[in-house]
């Protein structure tokens, strides 16, 4: 960056030009590599499914139609899955952010009884894990299997997020709270009225982390949920892909009957459109996510 500022004063040398050209070509190529799949996905969803099926769509959409979207909307359970996805993402994000902030707030209170012990107890959980199966057994014993709450409750307190928030809270001047104490405000009042409003940037960062994770998670459903009522969009897509995958396996194993049935419906365009439906919300929040994520990474990095 300095080099840029400095080189502006001088004319570019041939070496500089060469450097810029080589780097420019490379970065543009890589950016295209990152962008093209999304573009390709989009043009396929609005093109003629027949052409998509045979791979005729590459650069421009052809035979414009919204047929694929209409087809996808017919998938059983889609509306319900979309609702579950939205609900778990919103509810899970809000509750987890607040609970992590709540715990962080009390850990900033130096006079907490046994503070050091409890803090270590909580932080230690970042470095070990009982493992997938014991956690499964635990959640089963708690009756969370197959319920919507499996998406929300186990993740209520995120320890890493709690540390991020606590670090940020510690930089608040103590006088702010002291004056509220003199006005007779209890801990809860101070937390909700003073600390939370002042910690908006870090809370927004954490919330966006959580939002993206909630939206993208399909494994929780795979592991814990068998009731289609509680399927998420991601899981619906995963299941759909699995059907296609199994038909591909069937080709290899010689089980052609199954393949034939799958082939009759225009799988490719439906698959891609379903994928697009799952991606669109991410695209909508992406500008915000990107902005806050960068901040979040920096905070995490400073903390180490």
């Amino acid at each position, binding site marked *: 960056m300095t080099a*840029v500022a400095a080189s502006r004063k001088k004319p570019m040398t041939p070496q500089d030009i060469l*450097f810029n050209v080589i780097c420019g070509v490379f970065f543009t190529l890589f950016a295209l590599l990152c962008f093209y*799949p*999304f573009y390709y996905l989009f043009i396929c969803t609005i093109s003629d499914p027949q052409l998509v099926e045979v791979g005729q769509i590459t650069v421009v959409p052809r035979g414009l139609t919204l047929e694929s979207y209409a087809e996808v909307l017919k998938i059983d359970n889609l509306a319900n899955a979309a609702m579950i996805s939205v609900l778990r993402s919103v509810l899970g994000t809000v509750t987890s952010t607040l609970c992590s902030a709540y715990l962080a707030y009390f850990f900033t209170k130096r006079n907490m009884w046994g503070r050091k012990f409890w803090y270590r107890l909580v932080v230690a959980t970042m470095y070990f894990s*009982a493992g997938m199966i014991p956690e499964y057994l635990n959640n089963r014993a708690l009756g969370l299997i197959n319920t919507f709450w499996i998406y929300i409750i186990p993740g209520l307190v995120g320890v890493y997020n709690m540390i991020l928030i606590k670090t940020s809270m510690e930089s608040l001047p103590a006088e702010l709270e002291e004056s509220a104490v003199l006005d007779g405000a*209890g801990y809860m009042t101070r937390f909700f009225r003073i600390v939370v409003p002042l910690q908006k940037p870090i809370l927004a960062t954490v919330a966006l982390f959580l939002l993206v994770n909630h939206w993208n998670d399909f494994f929780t459903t795979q592991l814990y949920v068998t009731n289609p009522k509680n399927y998420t969009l991601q899981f619906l897509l995963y299941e759909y892909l699995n059907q296609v995958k199994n038909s591909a*396996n069937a080709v290899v194993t010689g089980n052609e009957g199954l393949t034939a049935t799958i082939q009759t419906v225009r799988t490719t365009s439906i698959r891609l459109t379903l*994928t697009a439906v799952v991606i669109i919300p991410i695209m909508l929040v992406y500008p915000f996510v990107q902005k806050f994520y960068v901040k979040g990474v920096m905070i995490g990095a400073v903390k180490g």
Partner: protein
Amino acid sequence: MQPKQQAVTARDLRRPKHKWDDYKVFLLALPAIAIVILFRYIPLWGWSFSLFQYKPGKDLFDCNFVGLQNFTFLFNNPVMRKNLVRVLTNTFGIHMLGYLFTPLPMLFAIFLSEMKSKRYQKLVQSVTTLPNFISWVIIYSLMNSFFSASGVATKLMIQLGIVDQGFNLMTSDDHVWLYMVLLQQWKSLGWSAIIYFASIAGIPQDMYEAAMIDGANRMQRIWYITIPSLIPTYFVLLIMSIGNFLNTGVDQYLTFGNALNKQFIEVLDLYVYNLGIGSGQISFSVAVGIMKSVVALVLFSMANFASKKIRGESVF
């Protein structure tokens, strides 16, 4: 009752703390601490399943107590041992291959920040971080369109004569590790570079100015100033990733795995999942999980120790 307590609290800010307030803070925090204990510590009780011959649907204490037999079986039974060796090979193989790519984000950041146009930098950054925010399911779906037998990229490669007709990367068992690692790079390269961008912005400007007065060219400035300034960040991240070595995550391998490439894609986490949930061998899979946790803790301690030795402070 309530006003009286608050009065106490207010006074306490200036005087030695009243004991009650200490307990009050603790009691208010307790529900949140309890959640952590409930979902992070209590599951450890599930480790006891590895000492029994657990059958799903039965009460644990109705099952046969077998002691450490499950653990010894993992090593002594030829089939189990072969599986264990295979998944460990996959886990290590994919990771080691991944480590070869770890300098990439740093180089990406260095060269991009040398580019003239700030807007171009921002644009490239925005576009290349995008793949980081989509799930592996979506990536699988996208890649299916590119690399399956009739995919766009496959057709292109056939035309260029790189591969033969009928090539299907999605089901091929050749180069599975490389394919997986390259996908990881595609997903995370732009994102991982962000931290280096920030570090580069923090390098004192006068170092570059001094170097330029001394006649250092661009490559010399990168080699003697930028890279040495970024190396500590690089090592911290590397060490942290070693601590996470065995937590490969199942998402990617679960979605990309199929009957044909299973041999090379089944990593430790996926094995635990397949064993426990897939074939219902709860006791064995818990045993594998325990060994994983223990090895992870050891690796983590080693990473921390290495960090202490190298940098004089622990990462965690």
